Each structure stands twice: as structure tokens, then as C-alpha cells.
């Protein structure tokens, strides 16, 4: 019934938008009848000239469509901006899709001679590595369960000993609480595969992010784990990073400071690519 009413209303609106039909032309005016003449000398009947046809009505005027209502200037409230900035489809931290970071790691690695056969657990030596990393996460595919799926990738370089990694996986938002205010939380996860100079591997990752100061500072705890069973070289690898982003303006650009710890080890022997290190660095979002 309600639908029918709406349909009727729409129909009426449609008619109102059509041109107004022209009114029918008025009938021609009858010829004037001469006034009766008093009885007098009969005079010849004068036939008056035929009246001019009545002028045609003016062509129908199609009313101009009503001008679109001019919306009143709206005020962008801080809440609206917050929602715009707080987009669930950005998978890094609370509000970011990518990060480019420069950092340094300091730790230990097995003290093995180059080319030496891997052996039992032995002495360690100090190692300092510089690192350049680029990460991206895009969550654009809504799931049937109210979450967002997407892809993530990470690549980067470390120095001394030189290492390169590239990994690619599927990311998903697991939990969202809040709309960008202080304490808003987002949990996410991902899994995928990758390689570095030590091994090929599969990994799982968890992310927990929170807003510290709305629209200004947010932070993320990210942990990635590769079990030895998912490593081509029997390494178990763990990487934990804590990042804080500072957003200086009103755009998407934010700057990052982070600390991280990385441990890559074989449980049964010393291998050349084992590493246990702690470090930190700075970064920025790109898009």
C-alpha cells in the first residue's frame, strides 16, 4: 500500500514536470446585431463588415524548472572530519595505507666464519643494520560479515649483512571500536608469503591500533610470526613493531616514529642468517 502511494506520488511529480497543456482557443465572437431602429422611414439595411477573427491565444509557456535549492553553507564539524580521516579501508595504524620508513637495528648474530658449516649454538657477535622499508595495506573488499578484506605488501632492504625481503598477503579488519575519538581501536590481521635472503616463508600478522589524540596522534602494535614449519630453512622469525604517527596538518600525511625487535633463529643450530636485534626509526605515510 505504501509503495502504491509512493508510486502515485511519483507519478504526480512526473506529470507536474511535463509541459502545461495549451488552453482551448475561444470560440469566435458572434457577429454584432445592429440595434433596432425606431419605426421611421425605412432605411436600407447596412450590413456591417465582418468582424476580425479573434486573436489566437499566445503559445503555451512551459514553466521553467524551478531552480535547484541552494543549500545553506554547511559547517564541517570536527566529528565529520574525524569520520573522514578514520577510514576502515586503511589498514596501517588507524588512518594510513602505506609507510616508508628508515631505521637502524642493533643486535647479535652467530659468530660464524664465512662459508663455515652451520653448527651448534655458539658465541655471538654484535651487528648493526640500517633498514629501509615500504609497507602498504589496502582494504577495499567488504566481507559478508561486516569487515573489510584486501591486500598488503612489504618490501625493504637491510645492510650488513645485506638482506632484502618482499612479502605479499591478504589483510582483513577484525574489529573496530569508535569513530576516531580518543581510544578508538582497530584490530586487524593478515597472512601471506614472502622471501628474504635467509628463507622463503609464510607468515601471519596481527595489528592493534588506537587513537591517542584525535586527529593528531595514533599508535599501532604490529606483530608478525613465521613458524619454523612455514620456513624453507627451519627458521622461526618474529618481528614486533610499535609505531606512533603524528599528523601535523589536516591532510592524510603523517610522520612516524617506531621501535621494533626482530628475531630470526633456528632452534637447533647456528645459521648464517640468524639475527636477534632491537631498533627504531622514523617514517612517513605516502598515501
Amino acid at each position, binding site marked *: 500500500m505504501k509503495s502504491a502511494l509512493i508510486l502515485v506520488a511519483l507519478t504526480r511529480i512526473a506529470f507536474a514536470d511535463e509541459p502545461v497543456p495549451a488552453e482551448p482557443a475561444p470560440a469566435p465572437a458572434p457577429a454584432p446585431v445592429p440595434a433596432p431602429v425606431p419605426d421611421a422611414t425605412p432605411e436600407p439595411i447596412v450590413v456591417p463588415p465582418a468582424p476580425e477573427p479573434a486573436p489566437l491565444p499566445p503559445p503555451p509557456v512551459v514553466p521553467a524548472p524551478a531552480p535547484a535549492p541552494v543549500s545553506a553553507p554547511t559547517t564541517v564539524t570536527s566529528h565529520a572530519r574525524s569520520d573522514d580521516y578514520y577510514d576502515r579501508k586503511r589498514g596501517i595504524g588507524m588512518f594510513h595505507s602505506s609507510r616508508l620508513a628508515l631505521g637502524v637495528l642493533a643486535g647479535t648474530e652467530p659468530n660464524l666464519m664465512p662459508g663455515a658449516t652451520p653448527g651448534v649454538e655458539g658465541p655471538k657477535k654484535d651487528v648493526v643494520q640500517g633498514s629501509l622499508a615500504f609497507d602498504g595495506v589496502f582494504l577495499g*573488499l*567488504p*566481507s*559478508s*560479515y561486516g*569487515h573489510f*578484506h*584486501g*591486500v598488503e605488501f612489504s618490501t625493504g632492504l637491510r645492510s650488513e649483512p645485506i638482506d632484502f625481503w618482499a612479502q*605479499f*598477503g*591478504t589483510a*582483513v*579488519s*577484525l574489529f573496530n571500536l569508535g569513530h576516531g575519538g580518543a581510544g578508538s581501536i582497530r584490530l586487524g*590481521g593478515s*597472512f601471506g608469503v614472502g622471501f628474504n635472503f635467509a628463507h622463503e616463508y*609464510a607468515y*601471519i600478522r596481527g595489528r592493534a591500533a588506537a587513537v591517542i589524540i584525535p586527529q593528531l596522534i595514533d599508535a599501532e602494535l604490529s606483530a608478525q610470526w613465521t*613458524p619454523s*614449519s*612455514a620456513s624453507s630453512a627451519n627458521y622461526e622469525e618474529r618481528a614486533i613493531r610499535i609505531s606512533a604517527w603524528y599528523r601535523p596538518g589536516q591532510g592524510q600525511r603523517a610522520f612516524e616514529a617506531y621501535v621494533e625487535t626482530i628475531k630470526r633463529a633456528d632452534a637447533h643450530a647456528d645459521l648464517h642468517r640468524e639475527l636477534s636485534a632491537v631498533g627504531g626509526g622514523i617514517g612517513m605515510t605516502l598515501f
Partner: protein
Amino acid sequence: MTYHLPRVAALSLALSLSLTSGAFASPLDGKLAQDGLGIEVGAIVQGGRSEFASNDAGLSPSSQGIVIRDRNGLSSRMVIGLLIAVAGAMAQVSPKSVESKSYVSGDYVVTETTTTYYSEAEKAQMREQTSKSIDGVFSTKFSDMELQLYSRDHFGVGESSGYKTNFYVGSGESIALESGFGFGVVDSIVDAGGTPTTVTYKYFGMPFRASVVAGPLRLALSYEWNWLKYGVPRADRLVHMDERGNAVVRTVSHPWHFDVSSIALGRVSLTAGVTAQQIRKTDYGYYLQAGVMF
């Protein structure tokens, strides 16, 4: 421990029929399990003569782990699409044909080898076909990526450690037909008469699956064609000592799986199934799986 497939199948069917009778509103949704797009994070338990067990040695490990499954998502499509792209690129640069002929010329045997490569037009056609194939992978109705991770050290108290993964894409309406590829390595340390024995399972092959929605349940029958089964000598399938003096045995099979699954309360994924390494034998394994869908 043995499990009888007909009994489990009958119970599953009876449960399915009772839930489809409409006598009460079911909290289970089989169609969501089949058609829904979501990622499952959960736990899996396997026992009996699962594919990780050795029928020849009579060893049945208890396996516990975590499972991550991307149903109808991008994971499987991306992996299979990447494989098609790599295969297409390799096919383009590989020789179209190689012909050799030998003949005697004086004191020498001369061998002439003629290698023919694909023309630029043929390469363009192959690129187009590859592109269409990848488009097809991303437009299929169904996809599935399932990763099972087992660990003796970090979670669970099972006897297995390793991983197994399958990637599917497929299509269909009332019956979904899916296929793809999979791989995995799982080793289990089982007590065999007081001797710890390592049962090693290796898988690289092609899974096939047919599934159907029956009311609140989804029924699936799958077969894993394990290419690594071929070439394993008989001696390796029996308990023997390796070079370190450990008791080891290799298990190989093309296992069949039949499982019943559903989504409970719109969020919880539940699966129960049986495994048969050989369809004609009565030694069956079972697996139970529960997870949360995101």
C-alpha cells in the same frame, strides 16, 4: 582407532534433514558457508587415520593446529592468477619445438638440432589467452584458500608439526565444483610401542571438491591428488631407521574428505568431516574445525 564413514554420513544426512524440516528456525546457515565472503580464523583437530597417519605402519597421530581460511576472497585468486601469469610467460619464451637428427658424414656423426620459437603474433595470442585466463580466475563465483598450521611447541598438545594449504577456484550453481593446487609438509612424532616414530606427510598436488548446500548445512566431498605419492619406495612406507638412527616412516595417499559445515549465528564456522586415505578401506580419520568468520 577406526571410524566408519557410512555411519557418520548417515548421521550427517539425518541432521541435515532434521534441520531442513522447517520445524524451527535454525541458527545455522549453509548458504553463507558456501557463498559468503569471509576469512575464518579457527582451530582444527584431526585424529584417527587422517592423511597424516600411516596406514601401512598403523600409526595415527593426534594433530591440533590453527586454520586460516579465505572463502571466496582474493587470496586464492591472486595466487592462482600469479601462477597462470608465470606459466604464460614461461610458455612464451620456451621453444615451440625442438627437432634433432643425426647422420654420418665421413668419419663423423653429425647431429643437427632445429629449435623453433614462437613468433611475435603467436606470443601476442598467448598473452591474450593468459590475460583471459587470469580474468576468468578473478570472475569465478567460488574461491577458497585454506591454511592449516600444526605445532607441537606453540599451540595445542598434538603430535604433529607443519602446514598444509589448498587453493581453489570454481564455479557452479546448485553444486559448486572447485579445483586448484595445494602443498604441505607435516611430520608427526607418534609412540609406536615405546619407540618415538616420525611419520612424515608431504603433499604437492591438485585438490578437487564438489559441494552443495543442504538447508542449513554445506556438504563437501573432496579428493586430493597427491603427486608426491608416486615414486616413494615401499621400504619408506614402513618403519625404518634413518641415518641418525631415528625411527621414521613416510605416509602417502590420495585422500578423500567428506565434511559437513555451516555458519552458526552468522559468525561461527563449524566443520566436521571424515578422511579416507583409500576409499575401499575401512580405516577412517576425522577432523573437527571451529572458527570465527571476519
